[in-house]
């Protein structure tokens, strides 16, 4: 049972992590495409159209990866977590159904027109299709984030015969953490797309230094990131305060705060030891956490000791630092890069942006690890434990399918990344 639970979690975690890579590109990139397409419509400069054509291909490939991995997700709710559907199916099912109905079809259908229909529809209609696809990706994120946030901070439900039913759909959807998580994810996607655009343009410029269009998109990506990253830091701070209010155990794990105390220090780095419940090699800023989270120097913060159910500290702690670290690096590169790019494009800067092509992915994955592991041992906070939701698929079945998934994902991910860089250099 232990083993099956672990395998089920690893398999689902792997699938969802692999899936989120692609929507986190497409949500942002779809709006970038609207911008590029509009620029062509307004300026009639063929360079914009060329740029649009390149990026719509990147989008199509990424979208296809998102679709196929998303199909996997819709099956695994049932195959891996039957207890989840039994307990909260009346709430989770409709939200997922709404995603398919209101978003998935829009995206998939109008993407066809975006890709193949330029000579068949008038210009305004083609622009409209781009807007519809972008709108669809955002609506898709809306429903998924509503469901995920509801699992973090459930609201608007009543219990009937041991299963949950929605009392108020409004409260279910607009649950306490939803607005913060939704904004945080949209910005994350915008940043991921911005660094992808800048990064692939930098690859292109390393190969062909005179490509004016690539210089334009590099600058555009860098500037977009320079605007979005500070906004993301602000939204992350607000999101954190919201989490402190509704899921204090997650914050205790993020801060590696073992004991409830006033004026708690901010642990910059440490190696948290979950068995002995202490931090090794800690580097701390005295009273820092109290200041950041309560905005008072002697504010009280609850530690891990205050919670009967709490997540493992070490993975949450490290994932959070990875996310914030990436954020800081992205802030520096986007601001400094934007500044330098105003006058020149030195090769070392191209290498820096090329190296950061997929940096958004690292931050996104780290962020999701924080929020998902931080929710443990609950699958739905206070309502359903992860251990109670797992199916009875034996270890052998899980192991076999897990091996097949890992093999497939490794091939697909490699092919995706190689193809993108290849396209950029051609």
């Amino acid at each position: 049972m232990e083993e099956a639970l672990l395998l089920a979690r690893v398999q689902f975690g792997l699938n969802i992590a692999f899936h989120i890579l692609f929507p986190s590109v497409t949500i942002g990139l779809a709006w970038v495409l609207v911008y590029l397409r509009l620029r062509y419509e307004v300026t009639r400069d063929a360079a914009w159209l060329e740029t649009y054509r390149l990026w719509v291909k990147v989008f199509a490939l990424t979208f296809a990866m998102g679709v196929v991995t998303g199909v996997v997700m819709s099956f695994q709710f049932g195959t891996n977590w039957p207890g989840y559907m039994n307990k909260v199916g009346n709430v989770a099912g409709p939200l997922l159904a709404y995603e398919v109905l209101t978003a998935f079809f829009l995206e998939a259908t109008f993407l066809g027109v975006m890709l193949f229909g330029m000579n068949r529809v008038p210009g305004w209609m083609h622009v409209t299709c781009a807007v519809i696809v972008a709108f669809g990706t955002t609506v898709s994120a809306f429903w998924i984030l509503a469901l995920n946030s509801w699992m973090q901070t459930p609201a608007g439900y009543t219990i009937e015969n041991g299963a949950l039913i929605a009392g108020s759909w409004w409260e279910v959807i607009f649950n306490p953490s939803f607005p913060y998580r939704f904004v945080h994810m949209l910005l994350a996607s915008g940043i991921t797309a911005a660094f992808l655009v800048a990064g692939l343009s930098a690859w292109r410029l390393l190969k062909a230094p005179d490509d004016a269009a690539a210089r334009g998109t590099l600058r555009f990506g860098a500037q977009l990131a320079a605007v979005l990253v500070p906004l993301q830091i602000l939204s992350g701070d607000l999101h954190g305060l919201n989490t402190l209010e509704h899921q204090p155990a997650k914050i205790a794990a993020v801060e590696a705060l073992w004991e409830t105390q006033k004026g708690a220090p901010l642990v910059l780095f440490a190696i948290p030891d979950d068995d002995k419940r202490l931090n090794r090699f800690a580097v701390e800023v005295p009273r820092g956490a109290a200041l950041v989270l309560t905005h008072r120097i002697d504010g009280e913060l609850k530690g891990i000791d205050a919670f009967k159910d709490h997540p493992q500290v070490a993975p949450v702690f490290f994932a959070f630092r990875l996310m914030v670290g990436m954020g800081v690096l992205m802030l520096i590169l986007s601001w400094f890069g934007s500044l330098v790019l105003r006058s020149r494009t030195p090769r070392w800067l191209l290498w820096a942006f090329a190296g950061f092509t997929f940096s958004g992915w690292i931050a996104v994955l780290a962020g999701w690890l924080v929020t998902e592991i931080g929710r443990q041992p609950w699958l739905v906070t206070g309502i359903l434990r992860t251990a109670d939701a797992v199916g009875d698929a034996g270890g052998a079945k899980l192991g076999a399918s897990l091996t097949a998934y890992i093999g497939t994902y490794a091939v697909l991910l490699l092919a995706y990344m190689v193809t993108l860089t290849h396209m950029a250099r051609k």
Partner: protein
Amino acid sequence: MNAELLPLIFAALMGIAILAYVVLDGYDLGVGMLMAGAERAEQDLMVASIGPFWDANETWLVLGIGLLLAAFPAAHGVVLGALYLPVAAMLVGLMLRGVAFELRIKADGWQRELWNWLFWAGSTLASFAQGLMLGRYVTGFAPGFGYWLFAVVVGASLCGGYVLLGATWLILRTEGALQQKAIAWARWGLMWVALGVALVSLVTPLASETVRHKWFDFPQVLYLMLLPAATLAAGGWTWISLGKSDWKPFAGAVAIYVLAFAGLAYSLFPYVVMDRLTLWDAAAHPSALKFVLAGAAIVLPFILGYTVYVYRLFGGKTKAGVYDQK
């Protein structure tokens, strides 16, 4: 809207979504399998013929599964848990072909050949796995070698069925030598389907007492025989119109699917898991059903509307070249 009626409405909606999926993704999976028999230039044309549609086609599967999850959550776990390995195989197949579809366009040389091969292999694996799932599903996941063998036969039959759909789609969308090839493929597909449907229709009543009673109890057996008769007629009509009409073979193939689906739905009703869970046992709470129904009532007409729009927009014979290159 009472609790008796809602599950019925959702069963109908789910049925429509799954039928739409089987027909729509069926033709593009079929085209994928037929890649093996085509020349290089023909392959490009075949892929171009499904290019604008395949993403949306696959979405019907997500809708079907989404409705199963939203409307019959208890069945979602039972069905997909029991179908664990075929589902995993299908998903791997769908992933490979979906990604190969995009990557083959961007690759050259041996890499292109590799993606072509993966597109074929993924299509075949997904089709076979879907048939396997169907075969396991109609027998209520009964254990034993015989039942698995039956599922394998259904898997092979569904491959034939998709080949028929794919070939008739190509007849509709292409011209010249490729169209002639597609006509020959369609004949093979049709024979394959006839064999498969006959075998499955014979074995299912033997394997399941419930199905036997539903079909052969007097007097409904008399008018129920209209269904196989109509299927036979649709098959014959498809055969005759091969080579004479561009659109009739595809329409005939779709008719075969609709009839086979009706027979299947009749066999299963009122179960959502054969002999175990009825629609009403597995249904979600009315509060959930009403919420989804409201959304579906508003959105589905739009989905149908723009699906028709896109098919009209990309109507006519497929031309070479992808992604509006010029």
